[in-house]
C-alpha cells in the first residue's frame, strides 16, 4: 500500500464516520433546526465521497445544489414556520419505534447481504479521465441528449407549478362572469365533501 492509497482509505473512513454520525443526528435530534444543519453535514460528506471517486464536478454540484440551495431552503422554511407546538405523546409510541427499527435493521441486513453476496461485474480499474467536465459534456450531447433535453421541460413545468401553488389567486372579473354564468368565487372542487366521520369532525372543531 503506497501513500496515496493510505490517504484515500483514511479519508474515506473519516468521511463515512462523519456522514453516519450526521445522518443519525438528523433522525434522532428532537429540534428540527439541528436536524436541518446536520443534513447539510451529510451532503458535504457525500460530496467528499464523490471527490474520492474522481467525480469533481459532481462533488461541486452536490455542494452548490444540495447545501447551497436545498438545505438553505429547508432552513428558511423552518425559520419561517417556527411555530412552537407541543404534541401529546402517543401511548405505546415505543411499539412503533421498535417496529420501525426492526424494519430498518432488517432492510439493512438484507441490502448488506446483497452487496456482499453479489458477484459484481467489475471491469478493469478505470483510469481517471483528464477532465470530468468534458466527459460529462460529451455524454450530455451524445447518448444522454434526450434525457438532458427532457429535463429542461421537467424543470419548466416544475417552475410553473411552483408559481401556481405559491401565487395569489386572482379575483374573477365581473364582466367576464356577468354574461351567462353565476359569479364564481369558490376555488373548490365542484363536488361536495363527504359527510365527515366523527374523528375528522373533532379535528375540525379543534381548529
Amino acid at each position, binding site marked *: 500500500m503506497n501513500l496515496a492509497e493510505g490517504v484515500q482509505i483514511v479519508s474515506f473512513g473519516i468521511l463515512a464516520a462523519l456522514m453516519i454520525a450526521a445522518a443519525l443526528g438528523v433522525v434522532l435530534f428532537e429540534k428540527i433546526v439541528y436536524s436541518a444543519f446536520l443534513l447539510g453535514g451529510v451532503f458535504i460528506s457525500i460530496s467528499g465521497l464523490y471527490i474520492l471517486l474522481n467525480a469533481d464536478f459532481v462533488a461541486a454540484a452536490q455542494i452548490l445544489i444540495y447545501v447551497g440551495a436545498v438545505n438553505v431552503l429547508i432552513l428558511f422554511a423552518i425559520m419561517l414556520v417556527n411555530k412552537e407546538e407541543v404534541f401529546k405523546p402517543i401511548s405505546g409510541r415505543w411499539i412503533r419505534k421498535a417496529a420501525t427499527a426492526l424494519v430498518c435493521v432488517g432492510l439493512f441486513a438484507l441490502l448488506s447481504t446483497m452487496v456482499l453476496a453479489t458477484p459484481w461485474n467489475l*471491469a478493469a480499474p478505470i483510469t481517471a479521465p483528464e477532465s470530468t467536465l468534458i466527459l460529462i459534456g460529451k455524454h450530455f450531447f451524445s447518448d444522454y441528449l*434526450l*434525457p438532458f433535453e427532457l429535463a429542461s421541460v421537467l424543470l419548466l413545468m416544475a417552475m410553473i407549478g411552483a408559481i401556481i401553488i405559491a401565487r395569489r389567486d386572482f379575483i374573477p372579473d365581473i364582466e367576464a362572469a356577468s354574461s351567462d354564468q353565476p359569479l364564481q368565487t369558490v376555488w373548490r372542487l365542484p363536488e361536495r365533501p363527504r359527510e365527515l366521520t366523527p374523528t375528522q369532525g373533532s379535528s375540525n372543531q379543534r381548529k
Partner: protein
Amino acid sequence: MDFSSNIATQLNAGAILPEGIVVVTILLVLICDLIVGKSSARWLPYVAIAGLLASVAALWLKWDATESLAFLQGFNGDDLSIAFRGIVALSATVTILMSVRYVEQSGTSLAEFIAILLAATLGGMFLSGANDLVMIFVALETLSISSYLLTGYTKRDPRSNEAALKYLLIGAASSAIFLYGVSLLYGLSGGQTNLDAIATALANGDGGESLGLAIALVFAIAGISFKISAVPFHQWTPDVYEGSPTPVVAFLSVGSKAAGFALAIRLLVTAFGAVSEEWHFIFTALAILSMILGNVVALAQTSMKRMLAYSSIGQAGFVMIGFIAGTDAGYSSMIFYLLIYLFMNLGAFTCVILFSLQTGTDQISDYSGLYQKDPLLTLALSICLLSLGGIPPFAGFFGKIYLFWSGWQAGLYGLVLLGLVTSVVSIYYYIRVVKMMVVKEPQEMSETVENYPEVRWSLPGMRPLQVGIVVSLVATTLAGILSNPLFTFANNSVINSPVLQSAKLTQPIAKAGISETSDRPIVQ
C-alpha cells in the same frame, strides 16, 4: 468537429417528432396565455387538442418506420411504443375536452392546467418509448411531478391539498425505491444504462441469478406498481382520486396507467429477461390481489369517484393477465384492452363530471331517477359502466374476452377463472349505478335529481364536454362490433416490435436454463 458530425448522423431525431409537437404545443399554450391574457381560455383548449391530434397523426406516420432506435439507442420508437404513446396522447385529448368547464367552474386558470397536463402527457409518451435507464427515470419524473401538480391544482380545497401531499410523499418514496433498484441494475451490468446492453451484460456475466438482481427486480416492480396502482402499492389511489379534480383522475387512471404498463413491458421483458420466471410470479400475485381487492372494495363505496378508483385498480389487475401471459396474443390483448378502456373509462368520468357540475355531488345514491331528467347522460353513463363491467354488445366485453382468451391459451387457468369471478362481482357494482339511474320510479327520485337544472350546452366549455360524451359513447358502442381494425392494429404493433419478438425467442432458452439449474438456490 468530427464529434458533432458523428453524433448528428446517428441521432435519428425524427423518431420523436410526435413528442416534439407536444412540446411546441406546451410552449404555444404558455406563450399565448401570457400575451393574450385571460380571454385566451376560449380557444386555448382547442389549440392543445389540435396539437395532440397532430401528435397522434405524426405517430401514425411513424408506424413501421425502418429505423426505430433513436438518440443512440436511448429511445425506441417501435410499433409497441407507438401504440402506447397513442393511448397516452388520446387520453390527454379526451381529458382536455372534459376539463374545460370543470376547471373554469373551480375558478382556477385553464392555460396552466392544460400546459401541465401536456407535460404529463409528454412524460408518459417518452416513458413508453424510453430504452435507457436515465431516460426512463427522467420521463417517469416528468410524468410524476406533473401529476402531483395537477392533483393539487384546486389549491383552495383542503381535499385537493391532502391528495397532492399524499401523492407527492408516496410518489417520492416509490421513485426513490425504483431508482435504487435501477442503480443496482447499473452496477450488476458493469456500468451500462442501455436496456439492451444491460440484458447482454447480465446474460454474459455471472450476475444473472444473484441476490442483487432479485432485489433490483423487486424494487423496480415496486416503482412500476405504484404507477399502475397494483394492490400492495395502491394505498394512495382512493384518497388521491377523491381529492383531485376529476379530469386529473381520469388522466391518472388511463394515461398514467398506460405509460406504467409500457414501462413494465419494456423494462421487464428486456432488462430482466434473465429472471422472467420470477417476475411472472410476482406479477401473478399482484394481479390476483388487484383483482380481488379492487373489485370487492368497490362494492362498498358510496362515492362515484371512489368507486371508479377501486374499479380502476381491478381493471389494472385484468390487464396484468395479458402481461403475465407473455405471448403475442397476451401483449396485443393488453393494448386492445387499454385502447377500449381509454374510451369507456374516460366516458364514465366525463359523465360523472357533467353530473357533478350540474348538481355538485358525486354520491351514488344521488343518481337515482336521473333517467327522467337527463336521458343522454343516463344513456352514456350506463353504456360506459356496462362496458367496464363487460356486458356483451359493448367494447369492454370483447376486450375482456381477448384478455381471458390469451391468458387461457398461455395456461393461466386459475388467473383467468379468478378474473371471470371478479368481473361478475364488478358487474354487480356497475349495474347498481345503472339500476339507480334507470329503474327507479319518479317518486323515488333523489332530491338532487329533482332539482336537476336543464343542461345548457351553450355555456362556455359545455360543448367540449358534450363532444367528449358523444365520442366516448360512440367509441364504446362501436368498438365492440367493429373491433377488427383495432385487433389488427394491436396485433401488428406487437408482431412488428423486435423487443417482444426477440424476448419470445430467448424465453424458452432461459426457461430451459432455469429448469436445469433449478435445484441451485438463487443466493450464491
